[in-house]
C-alpha cells in the first residue's frame, strides 16, 4: 500500500533528509517509525502524504506514483489518508465539532450527512460530551482526539501520525495509543513516528528505525540492518582515512546492535549512541 523505492529527499540548503530508503508498508499494518531527532522521520512521512516529492527514487501510495501525481490527485490521495501531528493543528476559533466537520465540508461531503458523521467520529474518540468545546477548553489529549477524529472523516486507508503523543503526559499517551490500536484493528494501517520507546515496547508491532535519513533497522526484515551495516562499512573504507574508518565502524556496529536486537527500538541508549556517533 505504501512503497518507497530508493527514495531520497535532498534540500538545497540543508542537504539529504531521506537517503535511499526502500520500504513497504502493507494494508492494515501498524508500523512504528523511530529514530533520533533529525533522522528524517517527518520527511519520510511527508513523502508518504506527498507534501514533498522525492529528489530521487519513487514513492507509491495506494497505487499513486509520486512522479506522475498532479496537485488535484494529491488532494484526492489525502482524502484517503488521515494525518495527525504533535501540535494537533486544530482551528482555534471553531469547536471540536466544527473542526471535524470542516474536513468533511472542504472535501465536498453532502451537507446533510455531515452532523451525524461528525457525532459518530467524536463518539468513537470518546469526545461526545465535548463536541461544542473550543480547542483552548480541551486538554492536550482531548485536542489530539479531535485531530484523530478529523483524520478519520474520510475513512482513511492509512493513518499517518507524526509524534502524536509528543506533547502529552503518560496517561493521555496511553489513551491515544489505545485509540490508534482500535483504529488499526478496524483495518486502517497506521504509520506512526515516535520517540517514545516505552510506547513501542508495549506492542509487538513492526518497528522501523531511521538514522541520518537512512533506514537502519526494520524488525520485519533483518536484511535492512545488514544492508545498512554493509553500507556504513563501505563508506568508511571509501573515506580512506583512519579516523573515517573508525567512525564508520562505530556506526556500523551500532546498526548491528540494532539488528541483533529482537526488540528493535527497545534499546533507547542504542539509538542515542547512533546519533552521537553519527554526528561525531
Amino acid at each position: 500500500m505504501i512503497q518507497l523505492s530508493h527514495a531520497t529527499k535532498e534540500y538545497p540548503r540543508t542537504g539529504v533528509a531521506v537517503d535511499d530508503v526502500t520500504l513497504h508498508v502493507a494494508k492494515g499494518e501498524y508500523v512504528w517509525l523511530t529514530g533520533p531527532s533529525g533522522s528524517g522521520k517527518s520527511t519520510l512521512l511527508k513523502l508518504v502524504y506527498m507534501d514533498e516529492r522525492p529528489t530521487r527514487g519513487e514513492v507509491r501510495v495506494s497505487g499513486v506514483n509520486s512522479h506522475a501525481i498532479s496537485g488535484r490527485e494529491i488532494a484526492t490521495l489525502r482524502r484517503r489518508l488521515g494525518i495527525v501531528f504533535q501540535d494537533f493543528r486544530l482551528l482555534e476559533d471553531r469547536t471540536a465539532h466544527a473542526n471535524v466537520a470542516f474536513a468533511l465540508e472542504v472535501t465536498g461531503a453532502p451537507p446533510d450527512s455531515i452532523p451525524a458523521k461528525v457525532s459518530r467520529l467524536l463518539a468513537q474518540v470518546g469526545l461526545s460530551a465535548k463536541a461544542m468545546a473550543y480547542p483552548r477548553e480541551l486538554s492536550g489529549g482531548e485536542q489530539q482526539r479531535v485531530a484523530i477524529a478529523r483524520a478519520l472523516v474520510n475513512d482513511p486507508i492509512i493513518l499517518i501520525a507524526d509524534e502524536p503523543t509528543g506533547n502529552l503526559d503518560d496517561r493521555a499517551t496511553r489513551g491515544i495509543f489505545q485509540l490508534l490500536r482500535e483504529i488499526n484493528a478496524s483495518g486502517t494501517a497506521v504509520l506512526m513516528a515516535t520517540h517514545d520507546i516505552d510506547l513501542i515496547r508495549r506492542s509487538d508491532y513492526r518497528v522501523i528505525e531511521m538514522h541520518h535519513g537512512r533506514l537502519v533497522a526494520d524488525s520485519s526484515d533483518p536484511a535492512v540492518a545488514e544492508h545498512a551495516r554493509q553500507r556504513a562499512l563501505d563508506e568508511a573504507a571509501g573515506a580512506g582515512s583512519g579516523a573515517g574508518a573508525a567512525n564508520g565502524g562505530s556506526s556500523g556496529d551500532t546498526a548491528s546492535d540494532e539488528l541483533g536486537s529482537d526488540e528493535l527500538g527497545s534499546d533507547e541508549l542504542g539509538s542515542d549512541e547512533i546519533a552521537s556517533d553519527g554526528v561525531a
Partner: protein
Amino acid sequence: MTLALREALLAFRRAPLLSALGVVTIAFSLFAFGLFGLVALNIRLALAQVEERVEIQAFLTEGTAPEAVQAALADIAAFPEVATAEYLSQDSALARARREIPEYRDVFAQAVLPASIDVRLKPGHRDPASVKAVAARIATYGFVDDVEYAQDWVDKIYRMRSIASLVGVVLGVAFGAVAVIIIGATIRMAVLARSREISIMRLVGATDGFIRAPFLIEGFTKGILGGGLALLLTWLAATLISRNLVRVTFFDPGVAVLGVLCGAIIGLAGSAVSVGRHLRRV
C-alpha cells in the same frame, strides 16, 4: 460555492478589525488615486476650454466680393482640421469690438475694422503645427490681406498640455502602482493570518481551487467596499472643494463605476496572486 461564500463571510466576522483595515487601506489607496484623477480631469477640462478659444482670423481686403467670401468659407469649412469658419463683416467686427473692448465705443463711430473669416479648429488639431498649416493655407487666398493667430499663446497651451499629459501619466502610474502594492500587502496579510487554515485544508484533501475560492470572494468584496468608500471620499472632497475653493467637475457615472470595479479587480487579482504564492510555498 455556498461553503466558499460562508467561509469568506466568516473571515470578515472572525477578524473584523483586520478586514476593516483591509477595506480602509484599499479605500485610501484608491482615494489618493481618485483625487489625483480628479485633479488630472479638471486640469484637462480647463486646458480644453482654453484650447477651444484657439482661433485663426483671416482679414479680408476691402471690397472683396461676397460670392468669393462665401466660396472661401465653404472651402475652408471643408478643411479636415476646421470645426467652424464664420464671416465677420466690418460692421459685425466693430459691434464685437465695442462689446468686448469698452474703449471702442467712444473712439470709433464707423466701421474701420476689416472684415474677416474667423476659423476655429477641431480638437486634436489645435497644436502649433496644425494651426500654422491651416493659417498658411488660408493666407493663399488672394483676397486675404493678413492672417493672425496667437502663436505664442498656442505654443504655451500646447506645451502646458504636453507637460500635464506627461505628468498625468507618470503620476497616474505611480499612484496606481502604490495602490496595487498597498492593497496587495493588505491582502497578503489576510492570507498569512489564515495560513494555518490553509495548511489544514490542504492536509484534509481540499483542492487548491477550493482553498482559493473564499479568498477570491473576500478580496473581491473588500475591493468593492474599498472602491465604494474611495468613491464616496473623492465625491466628498470634490464637493468641499467646489463649495469652498473652485468649481470642480466630478467623474462621469461610468468612470466612477469603473473606478469601483478597478478596486474589485485589484482585490480579486491581489487575492489570487497572494493565495497562489502561498499555496506554492506551503
